[in-house]
């Protein structure tokens, strides 16, 4: 039996659409709730990011509780940057007890790229170890070998970087994540479909579902900034040129067009098993992207 609606969809082998919400910096969650309501019935699941780019925000777990409250399907993004193994396990128990059963396991960005650069980085675990931690807890034991009173059950995923400029070590890590029990992967932002094709030729030998990460860019400036400052992002020159070619104020429109085009091609050519849309601060335009990509109503929730 599936542990979540999302896991059920994963095994259906249908094309999947997920997106993500970045929680607010502050206690006012009204805009996040608005975004959840806007997105929950149009996608298969909503990731809630965990202090993305190491910037302190409302927690991922809290955001997932809100997604659940509003009737959506949450994916808990969990990084190892801020919690040691006690805190990771405790948060997983809390998540499971509240029906949050999908977890994306990440190592987490470096503290140095964020807004609390003087904080102590934890990294007691890495992404592979976190995946294994979850499988261990599911077996009824905690990380010290003690019995759990009631064990959780999760659908777990991880990330992979098909456009890394040096791919071999990334693929070794990908295989470790598969071996550790990852059922699905949401990739880092894809900008060059040739690299996704190459990656899928290799990855299709594994029994995992791959969702291509789609980052919605709002301007050439933003693209260049991300290339320089955001870990794991390599926007191609062709896309930067395309964004630079539009008149002022039309950048986001172009970004939506590019995202939708990538999504359509991925689906039409059946390049991978779905897409994961990262609108980075522009969550409100996700329905528009879905419409332009002709993916509105792809989620069974919308039917």
């Amino acid at each position, binding site marked *: 039996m599936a542990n979540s609606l999302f896991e059920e969809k994963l095994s259906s082998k249908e094309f999947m659409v997920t997106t993500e919400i970045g929680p607010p910096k502050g206690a006012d969650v009204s805009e996040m709730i608005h975004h959840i309501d806007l997105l929950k019935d149009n996608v298969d699941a909503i990731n809630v990011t965990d202090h993305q780019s190491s910037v302190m925000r409302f927690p991922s777990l809290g955001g997932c509780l809100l997604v659940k409250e509003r009737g959506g399907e949450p994916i808990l993004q969990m990084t190892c940057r801020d919690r040691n193994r006690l805190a990771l396990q405790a948060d997983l128990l809390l998540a499971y007890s509240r029906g949050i059963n999908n977890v994306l396991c990440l190592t987490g960005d470096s503290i*140095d790229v964020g807004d609390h650069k003087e904080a102590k980085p934890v990294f007691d675990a890495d992404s592979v170890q976190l995946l294994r931690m979850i499988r261990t807890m599911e077996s009824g034991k905690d990380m010290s070998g003690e019995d759990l009173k009631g064990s959780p059950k999760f659908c777990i995923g991880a990330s992979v970087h098909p456009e890394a400029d040096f791919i071999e070590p990334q693929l070794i890590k990908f295989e470790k994540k598969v071996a550790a029990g990852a059922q699905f992967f949401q990739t880092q932002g894809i900008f060059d479909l040739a690299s996704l094709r190459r990656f899928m030729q290799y990855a299709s030998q594994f029994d995992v579902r791959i969702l291509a990460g789609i980052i919605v860019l709002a301007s050439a400036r933003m693209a260049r900034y991300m290339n320089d400052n955001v*870990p794991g992002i390599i926007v191609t020159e062709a896309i930067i040129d395309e964004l630079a070619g539009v008149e002022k104020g039309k950048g986001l429109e172009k970004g939506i067009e590019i995202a939708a085009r990538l999504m359509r091609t991925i689906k039409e050519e059946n390049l991978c098993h779905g897409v994961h849309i990262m609108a980075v601060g522009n969550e409100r335009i996700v329905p528009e992207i879905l419409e332009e990509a002709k993916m509105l109503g792809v989620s069974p929730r919308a039917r």
Partner: protein
Amino acid sequence: MIVAEQKPLEEIRRMIVPYERVLILGCGTCMTVCNAGGEREVSYLHSALRVAQAKGGNGAHTFSEYTVRRQCDPEFLDMIGDKIADVDTILSLGCGIGVQALAERYTDLPVLPGVNTSFMGMANESGVWDERCAACGDCRLDDTAGICPITRCTKGILNGPCAGTKNGKCEANKDIDCAWILIYRRLERLGQLEKMRRYYPMRNFRAIPRPKRITSKTTVDVGEDNG
């Protein structure tokens, strides 16, 4: 070796304010090699403090200077009894270990740290030192082709690179090599990539508990359990 940097002069001047007679004490071992607190640096600091005082400012001090072979060795500290007889504080240019060894040896005398002890490392080129060891107590350099991911990866992770590496550099600092790219390349050259494919579980932070203590087997009585 241990690598340190001398503290800014202004910070040192603020620290010594309450004390009239100050002994500037250098260390002849690591601090000499890394140019942070050897005989030469003691002499420079002595002059700098005198000049600063002459220009006016906080308090009137008398300074003396001396450098011992090793501040972290009680044997050498016993030999400075006459140097400290008439001082109100020791401004140590030894590493953090030296400062503490002095404080343990001379219980009634305030000891001030004149350097910031930074890491264990090696000189790569003249005047440039790089960190190499985190003293984790559980060396795994065999698994990582002689390149330490605990020290040289900003996240200290064990199962391969994160996705933030770009052009072989670290996401936290574009001037620093990604340890895992170095490890991959060297394992590949050695024909040992299978070591990277292995799963490494979470570290044991109890490998030796903090504060750590090692008792050399040669100084332990025969028959005593040294485990």
